[in-house]
Every structure is written in C-alpha cells, then in structure tokens.
C-alpha cells in the first residue's frame, strides 16, 4: 500500500498561453522533508497552490492524503499548514489578533501557549501592527501560524525568505523538530544550502516538469567529485586515465600534481592512489547548489 501524502500525476496548468505545469509527476512520502527546488518561475508555487485548491489544474490528478483537493478542499486544508511564498498579511492586525483570528478559523484548535513559546523563540513582538513589521518579522508571523497548526503536512513556500542567518537556522531547526514529530514537510526553495541541511529528498523542477527526484545525499553523491592529488614522485598520466569514471582535468608539477573529476564511487581512485606515495589529497564534494546548476546547464544544453 502506498504511503504517499502527496501524489501528482501528469498535472498541467496554463496561465493563458503560459504552460506553467507541463505534466508534473510527484510523490511525497509520509514523514519526510521534501525539498522542492527550482528557480523563479519554474512552477514551485503553482504546484503548491494547486494542491491547496487555490488554483485549479487544467488536467491531471492531484491527491493529498488520498483526497482530491478540488472535490474536498476542506478535508485537505484541515490537514495542511501553509506558508505562502509571497506572504501578504492584513496590516491592521497585530500578530496576536491575527493568531486569534486564525484560531477561530480552525475552531480554536491551536494551543495559545505554543504560539507564545514560538513567538519568543523567533523573537517576535505580538503587539505591533503587522503593517509596521519588517519583512522578516512578517515572515515569522507566517511561520508561526503554520508551525502551530498541528497538522500532518506542512507546505512551506520559501520559508526562510527575509530572515536573518540566525533566524534561518532556528527555522531549519523547527522544521527538523516537526519531522521528528512525524509531520511531513514539503518546502520549496531556491536557497539550496538550506534544502541540503534539512531535506530527506529533493525534487528539481524545471519549466513546469520534474527533471530529477532523489535522496539528497544520493543526488550529491551521484554527481561529480573533484580530487586534487599531490604525489611525491612522477606518476604516469595513463595510470590514472585507466581508472573507471575518472577524468583528468589538469596536470602540474611534472606529472606530480593532478586535478581529477570522479563520477560516482571513489573506490577505484583510492585503490590506485594506494600504489603511490601521496603527499596531499583534497576532495571537494559538490554542494547541492552545484548539482542543481549542473542539472540546469545540462537541461539547457539539451534543449
């Protein structure tokens, strides 16, 4: 039996002539943190809005907890906490009034003490008018209303937007805590280092369709690794060229210093290096950012 919390099959969405989602397929498992990556305009926000029935796809199938949001939007929204990417709040509220209002909309199912605790943790003043708050503080209001929902699924669209580095870290910690409590977190971002820190799996969306979906570590591991080796003696170029999945990028110091690119497993290279006196070895794993850019370069190249 499938353990999917979110399931999208061949979803298409048009804005006039713009084909925003082009047959998007996606599955998110229960209890995972799923990072949804893509540059601006790739379709991340459109996907989330379709899942919440704020906009409707032109075709395709969407299920959230096995429920079609178009047929039973309330049942879906009961189970989802949402932070919009372009968060806009009514300015005449104070955060305190705003949370009280949202509590009423959720039949007072939100714990007020928890709201106070989170506000303290994120250093948010509850009694200033929202219109006077900075973008970062408005974002905190959005995050708190989302985190205190006590729902099994959180959809966070660019959750750290406008926050200072300390607060970003705190929000990532809260996301981890949510996962530990069994909450599934679906969050979109283009800040890849953050996704890398918390996401179990990532999906890369490009021009409205998913180009890659994988475990975060696998995705990084599957990609190219750069190795810089300094030998104590000359090493023949051909020796290194024979190692599977290794490409020589640069040779310096009379065949004593090599810059290599390794695709996938490192074991072949390590075994070969063991045969020579190695003075220094530096291995650079790519960040998710590099992987992401690589994907886009490859896709652009093949387009």
């Amino acid at each position, binding site marked *: 039996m499938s353990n999917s919390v979110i399931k999208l099959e061949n979803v298409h969405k048009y804005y006039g002539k713009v084909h925003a989602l082009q047959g998007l397929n996606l599955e998110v498992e229960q209890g995972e943190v799923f990072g949804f990556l893509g540059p601006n305009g790739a379709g991340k926000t459109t996907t989330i809005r379709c899942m919440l029935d704020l906009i409707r796809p032109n075709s395709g199938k969407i299920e959230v907890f096995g429920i079609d949001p178009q047929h039973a*939007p309330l049942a879906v929204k009961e189970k989802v906490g949402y932070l919009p990417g*372009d968060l806009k*709040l009514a300015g005449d509220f104070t955060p305190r009034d705003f949370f009280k209002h949202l509590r009423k909309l959720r039949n007072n199912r939100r714990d007020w003490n928890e709201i106070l605790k989170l506000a303290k943790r994120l250093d948010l003043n509850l009694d200033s008018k929202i219109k006077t708050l900075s973008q970062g503080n408005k974002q905190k209001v959005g995050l708190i209303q989302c985190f205190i929902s006590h729902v099994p699924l959180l959809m966070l669209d660019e959750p750290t937007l406008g926050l200072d580095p300390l607060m970003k870290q705190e929000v990532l910690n809260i996301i981890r805590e949510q996962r530990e409590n069994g909450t599934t977190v679906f969050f979109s971002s283009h800040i890849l280092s953050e996704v890398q820190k918390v996401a179990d799996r990532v999906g890369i969306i490009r021009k409205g369709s998913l180009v890659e979906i994988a475990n975060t570590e696998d995705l990084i591991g599957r990609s190219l690794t750069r190795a810089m080796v300094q030998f104590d003696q000359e090493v023949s170029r051909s020796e290194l060229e024979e190692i599977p999945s290794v490409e020589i990028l640069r040779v310096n110091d009379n065949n004593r210093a090599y810059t290599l690119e390794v695709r996938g497993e490192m074991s072949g290279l390590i075994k070969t290096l063991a045969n020579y006196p190695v003075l220094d070895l530096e291995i650079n794993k790519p960040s998710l950012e590099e992987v992401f850019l690589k994907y886009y370069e490859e896709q652009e190249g093949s387009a």
Partner: protein
Amino acid sequence: MFAIFKRRLLKNWLMILGWGLGLGLLGYYLFDIYETFFQRDVNLMEVFNAFPDDLMAFFGGDVDLFSPSGFLHLEFFSYMPIVLGIMVVSAAASLLSKDEEEGTLELILAQPIRRISLFSSRTLALILSVVLILGITWIGFYLGAQFNDFDLSLAQLTRPFVSLFAVLMLFLSLSLLLSMILPSSSSAGLVSGFLLIASFFISSLARIDEKLEGVNRFSPLKYYQGGAAVEGLDLQNLLLLFGISLFCLLIAGFLFAKRDLRFGGSGGFRLVFSKSE
C-alpha cells in the same frame, strides 16, 4: 463563518458611523428646512412653480414638491442612490477582489474554510453595514419628523428607505458580480459606477424625453420609488430589484467558488473561464 462576518463588520464601523451620522443629521435638518422654506415662505413656492416642468421632472419626477413625500424625494431620496450608490459600489467591488489582488486572501483561503462561506460572510457583513447606515439615517429622519410635528407615520417614513435599500442592493450585487468577472477590483468599481450614473441620467431624462423610455426599462433606477414610496411601496418593482440582486449574488458566489484565485495583481477574464482553456 461568524469570525469573518464579525471582523468585516468591525472593519466597516467607521464607514457605518460616518455615513449614518452624516446622513442622519442631514435628514434631521431637512424637516426644519421644509418648515422654513415651503410652509412659511409662499414666495419661494412661486419661484419653484415658475421652474420649467422639464427641470422639475428631471429632479423629482411626477411628485408634488410641496408635499412631504415630494420634498423628501427632491431633497434626499432623488440623489441618494448616487451618493450611497458610489460608496456601495466601491465597497462591493473591493469586498473580495482587493484582498485577492493584495495577496492577503491566500493565507485565509488556505485555512479550512469554504470559499462560499468567506463570500457569504463578507457579503452579509456589507449588506448589514448598508442596513445600519440606512437605520441610523432613518433615526435622524424620525427625530426630525417628531421634533417638527411632521405628519408621517413610521411606515410612511420607512418605505422610502426600503426602496433605497433595494436599489442599493442591486448595485452592490452587480458590482460584486463584476468584480468576479472583470480583471480587477478597480475596473469593476469603474464599470459599476458608470452604470450607476448612466442609470441615474437615463431615468431622469426619460421623464422629459419619451424616446428614452425603451432604454429606461433596463435602468435599475426606473424601478426606484424614492420619496414617492411614502404613499405606498410598489411591490412588483421591489421584488424585481431584490430578485435581480439575488441572482447577481448567486452568480458572483458561484464564480468565486469555482475560479482560480488572483495573485499579486494578476487578473483577467481568463481566470473566470480558466477551465475552457
């Protein structure tokens, strides 16, 4: 959704008090003016009688300007559909669309509430706001009539307000409907305002020029009685206005429930008919 209804009503309290007290005071002093100008100053009556019939017809129709009902119509109810109408049209056009365009509706609609609940709560709050404005105004009229020993029963005083409410309801619902169809709240307000003013002029001019009677049939203000309702309400006209209002509200509610939400100032006819693409 009582929370949404209450919040919207509280948001309107300044508008309710401002308009209600202002118009109530105007109503109160109108009865003083009537005493001064019409019952004691016979020369002024002669001046008014000397005005061309067409001019008097444009402003008042076939009512007797020197009767309480004719006076109330000329001095208040003839132009109230325009004055209150512009307020109502602008409030209805932005009732949902403005928040949509500003993006504040996104988070609200992500909560477990039905779109139709949001629509009906806000619409009912606006309708109640209009009722409260008319109610406060009515109190001003009532006090004015009492202090000046005016011979108007409660029912006679109330009927023109019912007629005014009916025509305001029509423009409210029309504006709300247009805000669901047109690309933005400002365009809906503009078109509804234009229709309101056009309706005023067509209905007024049709009293002078019979050739306009054909067009006038489609003008909502043709079915508005104003001060003449003191003598009795035309139930057929009233039902027609309320019926069309209800129809517009139902269509507007249906469109709001079915169409894509607008985001960040986006909007267009395609949003209403997005399924057809």
